[in-house]
């Protein structure tokens, strides 16, 4: 097994790219700026009600922004991972060594995941300073939990970008594919879920009520989007830490996929499936 060698090589190579420096700086600016916006300019409604911006409320506010920004950073860091090496020819060097194609896909994922982790940690470290100084009651464990779940979310888009990158020898196609999927998850998934519910209900929205099968189907499809799963998972963990009792308020008879922990199952799914699909395609192709 030489995936460690591939991961280490890839990490060293990618960490020195100018793109990464740019992304890290952007991310630092973003996390500081977003924290400022959420606390000072556009606080969550609940904060207006209680008059206090807690770490929890701050993070809930930030989640809207990180859900868009993190995928962009992750895709930008990973879309070239395999297609770029195929395009340039360095993949021939990589595969003339005794690296299996599975080693290459796994190693690439880990290498890029490491790179994105560095960018996020640096960015969030800046964010934490700003957040700590702005939130009325700063809770480090809650913030760290937020960083942890965000990292997992970033890995999802690293996996998607590496998986797509394994499908093609063209970096531009890899970019279109990855960003296209991001757009689908971010902006079209809700429409898709509605469309499916509409079709399943005999091409009408009439008679769909909370709790019935078609409504549940609609909710299931919605939660299957990594973006929704991320937001749900982050809220769950932070509530657990904050021990806010409303976290457990989800009705006992609600379907399992509506429970907050299910977000993590979805995130794990979106890490494994794109990598597996990418590997199978890569394994079968002539280089």
């Amino acid at each position, binding site marked *: 097994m030489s995936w460690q060698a591939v991961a280490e090589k890839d990490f060293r190579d990618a960490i020195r790219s100018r793109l990464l420096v740019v992304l890290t700086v952007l991310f630092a600016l973003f996390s500081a700026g977003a924290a400022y916006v959420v606390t000072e300019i556009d606080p969550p409604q609940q904060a207006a009600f209680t008059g206090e911006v807690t770490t929890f409320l701050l993070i809930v506010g930030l989640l809207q922004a990180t859900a868009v920004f993190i995928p962009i950073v992750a895709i930008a860091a990973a879309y070239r991972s395999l297609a770029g090496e195929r395009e*340039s*020819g*360095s993949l021939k060097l990589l595969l*003339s060594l005794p690296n*299996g194609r599975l080693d290459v896909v796994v190693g690439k994922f880990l290498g890029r995941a490491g790179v994105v982790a560095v960018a996020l940690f640096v960015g969030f470290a800046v964010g934490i300073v700003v957040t700590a100084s702005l939130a009325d009651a700063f809770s480090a464990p809650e913030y760290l939990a937020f960083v942890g779940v965000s990292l997992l979310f970033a890995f999802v888009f690293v996996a998607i970008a590496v998986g797509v990158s394994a499908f093609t020898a063209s970096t531009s196609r890899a970019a279109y594919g990855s960003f296209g999927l991001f757009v689908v998850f971010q902006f079209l998934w809700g429409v898709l879920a509605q469309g499916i519910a509409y079709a399943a209900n005999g091409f009408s929205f009439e008679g769909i009520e909370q709790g019935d099968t078609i409504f549940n189907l609609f909710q299931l499809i919605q939660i299957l989007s990594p973006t929704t799963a991320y937001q749900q998972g982050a809220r769950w963990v932070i509530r657990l830490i904050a021990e806010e009792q409303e976290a457990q308020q989800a009705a006992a008879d609600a379907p399992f996929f509506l429970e907050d922990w299910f977000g993590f199952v979805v995130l794990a799914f979106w890490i494994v499936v794109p990598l597996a699909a990418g590997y199978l395609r890569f394994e079968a192709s002539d280089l």
Partner: protein
Amino acid sequence: MRRAEAAYNMAAIELDGVEKSFGDVRALRGVDLEVEEGEIFGFLGPNGAGKSTTINVLLDFVRPDAGSVRVLGRDAREESVAVRERTGVLPEGFDIYDRLTAREHVAFAIDSKGTDDAPYPVLERVGLQDAAERKAGGFSTGMRQRLALAMALVGEPELLILDEPSSGLDPNGARELREIVNQEADDGTTVFFSSHILGQVEAVCDRVGIIREGELVAVDTIEGLRENVGGGSTLVVEVDSVPEDAAHHLKSLDGVSEVTIEGTTLRITCEDDMKMDAIQELEAQGAEVSDFSTEEAPLEDLFAAYTGEEA
């Protein structure tokens, strides 16, 4: 230990009926080839003849449509990683990692192969010791070629596969490459390398194979190729004056295939044992022979004879 299999005189490379098409293009049309352990084998052919596809099949970069491929006694497809653990490869059309140093490249090869070599001595062998800590992005084509060769040499491979190794090397670099190839072969390493120029392989190869339009058209030693092409040598005769009808008379001799005349010089392509007969025939026609010599057919003509290309 390393040569345990040599006792069985195993083939290092065995291709049997290998076919591969890319869309409508039939890149390999049933290639059979056996390269023995320990030999230096030159794989020749014009660009686009199927050399790289053959090498890509050996490395499992490309999967054949039909036929079997075994390298170092193992299936090239199913056991590719095991094959590459014992094979050093200098691929064609590769690129290096711009942001990694030369030493990091070799360290990566060491990690991938799981050996305990040190990077520096390997870099020294290919003459890159002074560039060890430089990022490879600034390397010339020749330096990139040396770096990839260094990566190939890591772990004392039993087989070296070099795809167009001299491209990008200056004459000095090409000579150093030949030295390294010879050193490796002296250690018992099998060397398989491709080229589109026969002159490059003549000096080092035990045998050569010539591929043309996806088919192997010859596998032999260089001398064997010369003999097979026929009229391997040319007799050059200098006379005082060329007798009338000399060409006609000479050609009527058995074993003389071609006669050209330039001024008072005759170039007679013939079998070796007909040379004296040819000279005697000229003298019988009344010519006085002042000088004669023999020339071997130029390698380019030999190559052209097999590949059907203009040299």
